[in-house]
């Protein structure tokens, strides 16, 4: 956040540089079952983001000392391909991806009936093949689809969505330029049926009003993304997608 730029991010008509309205999402495409080797998988294209997620498990947790006798442990790994960003990224986890892996693991745990699978691990791998701002929320959305595809029992699908502030305006789903030159970003993960918030981060500079407006905008959009999730799962399975 907060690099200064001479770029105007909101034009005189209140439109954004990619032509969107403040509360408009980028185009999103979802596909389930893309990794044959995995127990469940999904692909999400979200603006310029291309993200693949796969689930393995529940399977015996290894090494043994990480096993929890009362429930499954959920281990998400967020990883960016070296070529997913403008300047080549060195392979392997950096501090940012370690933090994101942690908060995504925690968010996913909140919806999974982990107590049904003691001593196991549910491994969720999120690969960012092309990055374009909002990778963590697109990634958690892909992960949610992959978990459903794997038949992991969950109390709700989970939806990732971000809002933020750009040129003083609260906007939904920041793109790359808005992320680079904007004033705040609020990535969230939401359980649409109950409105619970499973992931919440924020960085930038916002008043209380701006922040609550942004959160409400993201929660509203979550319902739309939720419908796409249902659709993507129906496309594969027909019928009921919940457990």
């Amino acid at each position: 956040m907060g690099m200064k730029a001479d770029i105007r991010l909101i034009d005189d008509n209140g439109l954004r540089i990619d032509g969107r309205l403040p509360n408009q999402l980028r185009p999103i495409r979802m596909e389930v079952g893309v990794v044959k080797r995995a127990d469940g998988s999904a692909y999400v294209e979200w603006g310029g983001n291309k993200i693949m997620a796969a689930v393995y498990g529940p399977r015996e947790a290894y090494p043994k000392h990480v096993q929890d006798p009362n429930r499954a442990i959920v281990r998400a790994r967020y990883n960016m391909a070296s070529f997913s960003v403008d300047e080549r990224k060195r392979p392997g986890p950096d501090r940012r991806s370690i933090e994101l892996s942690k908060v995504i693991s925690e968010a996913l745990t909140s919806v999974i009936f982990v107590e049904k699978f003691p001593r196991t691990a549910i491994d969720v791998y999120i690969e960012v093949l092309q990055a374009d701002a909002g990778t963590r929320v697109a990634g958690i959305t892909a992960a949610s689809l992959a978990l459903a595809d794997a038949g992991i029992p969950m109390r709700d699908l989970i939806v990732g969505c971000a809002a933020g502030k750009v040129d003083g305006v609260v906007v939904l789903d920041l793109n790359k330029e808005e992320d680079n030159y904007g004033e705040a970003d609020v990535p969230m993960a939401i359980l649409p049926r109950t409105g619970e918030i499973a992931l919440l981060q924020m960085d930038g500079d916002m008043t209380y009003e701006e922040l609550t407006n942004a959160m409400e905008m993201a929660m509203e959009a979550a319902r739309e993304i939720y419908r796409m999730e249902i659709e993507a799962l129906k496309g594969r399975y027909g019928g009921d997608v919940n457990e």
Partner: protein
Amino acid sequence: MSNTSKFSEGVVAESKRSYIKRLATQGMRIDGRNFDEIRPIKITTGYVPRAEGSALVELGETKVLVGVKIEPGEPFPDTPNMGIMTTNVELVPLASPTFEPGPPSEEAIELARVVDRGIRESHAIDMEKLVIEEGEKVWIVFIDMHILDYHGNLFDACGIAAIAALNNAIVPASRYGFGDDFKLPLNHYPVPVTFAKIGEWIVADPNLDEESIASARLTVTTNEEGKINAMQKGLYGTFTYDEVKKVINRSLDIGKKVRDKILGDANGEED
């Protein structure tokens, strides 16, 4: 990647768990505090004279020492006219039986990054005043957080110690022949406040026992203008939107009091 936190005892006796929850139904906490009451804060700045800035912060029994080192170095290519800051947390095994030697754990990394975001996103340090020669040489501010005794809520202890140590720091220009030393220029004073959700209750500044049984955690960093600069939700539980709003509001109040303490204590004594 795990969801059992290093910041917990792992297993808390079931009896203690029920006791804390039973107390909560009566609006009480195990150490006698109110839900919105934080533990006593003691700040000793200048604890490490060899560092350019330092602060030892005690938040209840939790003890954190932050040292700030400032050295010349190359700017990043895309910000030739800005200084650089880095943050690092060492969960040294001296501070807790649950900390292990080795490279930073995911807990240490999250902790460092949350403190980092609060300082960076509030533009607390005036980075443009840390240029020695544009594009060639700038001041690098290293914020190293050393945990010395872990009794819960490192986010706030570290965040408080970091801003107190920065506020205490002198840029050692004369040592490198770059003119007179000067106080590290600060624009803002971000303060993180952390809440834990225990059952249906939400308490400020959780102690170790509370942290051990909390289902969710939310840290909100606010500055002296009442702006929000950073948030971080943690753990495997969830918050409702109303709970989040309430937490943000309380963070603004508590943050203000803590900030007064930091700025008032700026010339405190070592204990």
